[in-house]
């Protein structure tokens, strides 16, 4: 045998005589399947123990060659090592999960993946549209023409017109004057009432108490509060509140 360039020579691994090219496997299950097929028996008859050994040898060699192994290959190796020891131990009825079930499941997975590969190959071997048979390249196309017939009666028509006329007919709008205290007014009031007082005083004490109109009273309350905020912003007074919903205290800073 001729000496080969060591960089060209494919690395061969023990029983499986596989080319060490991890990139060509789609994960540990794929590698396992390739190894299993090298046993040249029906996958249903595969020796799981032999397969585990093949895989572990493969991984060991890969490590010896300092090849980068993806983590999932190592996880699989650890799991298979565990499976192997469980299979070799005297049967333990308490063992959970049963290692023989695990071996069966692994065999099932391999057979299923193998079956799917085979199915894919058989699919691709079928005559394919666009390669073996061809559809019409330039069909005229079919078209359903829908002729709309509108089911609208004269009543629909005139009642619609009636509705428009009713809608746009003369309408009397009565604008009620809502009693409000304007913000300017509230600022003026509060500033005047506060004067030069430097004692903390409840804001509510500055509200008029004799208001009969409830909506006006609410407007006064709101406007006075906003006025207090505005005067505080202008630095003319200070605001204080001990707690949420506690009385709001104000005092002049002038």
């Amino acid at each position, binding site marked *: 045998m001729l000496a080969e360039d060591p960089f060209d020579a494919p690395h061969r691994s023990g029983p499986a005589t596989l080319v060490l090219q991890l990139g060509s496997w789609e994960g540990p299950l794929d590698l396992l399947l390739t190894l299993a097929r090298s046993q040249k028996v029906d996958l249903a008859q595969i020796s799981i123990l032999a397969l585990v050994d093949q895989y572990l040898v493969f991984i060991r060699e890969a490590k010896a060659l300092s090849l980068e192994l993806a983590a999932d290959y190592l996880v699989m190796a650890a799991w298979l090592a565990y499976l192997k020891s469980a299979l070799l131990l005297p049967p333990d009825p308490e063992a959970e999960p049963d290692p023989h079930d695990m071996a069966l499941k692994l065999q099932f997975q391999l057979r299923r993946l193998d079956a799917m590969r085979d199915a894919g190959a058989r699919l691709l071997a079928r005559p394919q549209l666009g390669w073996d048979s*061809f*559809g*019409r*390249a*330039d069909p*005229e196309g*079919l*078209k*359903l*023409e*829908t*002729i*709309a*017939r*509108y*089911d*609208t*009666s*004269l*009543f*629909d*028509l*005139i*009642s*619609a*017109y*009636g*509705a*428009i*006329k*009713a*809608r*746009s*007919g003369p309408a009397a709008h009565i604008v009620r004057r809502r009693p409000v205290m304007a913000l300017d007014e509230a600022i003026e009031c509060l500033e005047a009432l506060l004067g030069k007082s430097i004692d903390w005083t409840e804001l509510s004490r500055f509200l008029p108490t004799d208001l009969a109109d409830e909506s006006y009273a609410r407007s006064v309350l709101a406007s006075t509060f906003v006025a207090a905020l505005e005067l505080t912003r202008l630095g003319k007074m200070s605001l204080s509140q001990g707690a949420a919903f506690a009385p709001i205290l104000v005092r002049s800073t002038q």
Partner: protein
Amino acid sequence: MSTESPLRALEAIIFAAAAPLTLADIAKHIGERGDLPHLLRDLAAAYADRGINLVERGGRWHFQTAPDLAHHLRPSREAVRKLSRAAVETLSVIAYHEPVTRPEIEEIRGVAVSGGTIDVLMEAGWIRPAGRRETPGRPLQYATTPGFLAHFNLIHRRDLPGLADLKAAGLLDREPPRELALPFSSTDD
């Protein structure tokens, strides 16, 4: 291969082609053969009575559906539809105020009229453009058609109930009762 084989290949080639094929085009696929015109005539004869015919147009061959079957390929069906409220209202404004411009319709209805609404009424054959108003912007006017009168069983536009009639019928109330029986409510009258 059977003697029929060239015809099979011929029909497959012409069928799958993206455009009608000349004799030279066909020969590229099937190989040069002196009897090609003859084969094509045979194939055309075989299809003559079918729903698909092989025809020659200007030296190019293609399959097409038999002309007498066109009604199957573009069948029409009648769909009964309800006009949208906007369309009915727009139609009524046009009917009562024609010729009327779109801004006028919008003013009367109090809402914008979408182009789609006009299109639907036009497609239904009930309204038509009726010249331009000689005012700034020269807006297009709309009017109803004889088809409109026919559909609503009106001899003349004057037969539309007037405002007084509408009021009497309670149709100027805010919420017109839809089931209201009116003397003129039936289109069969």
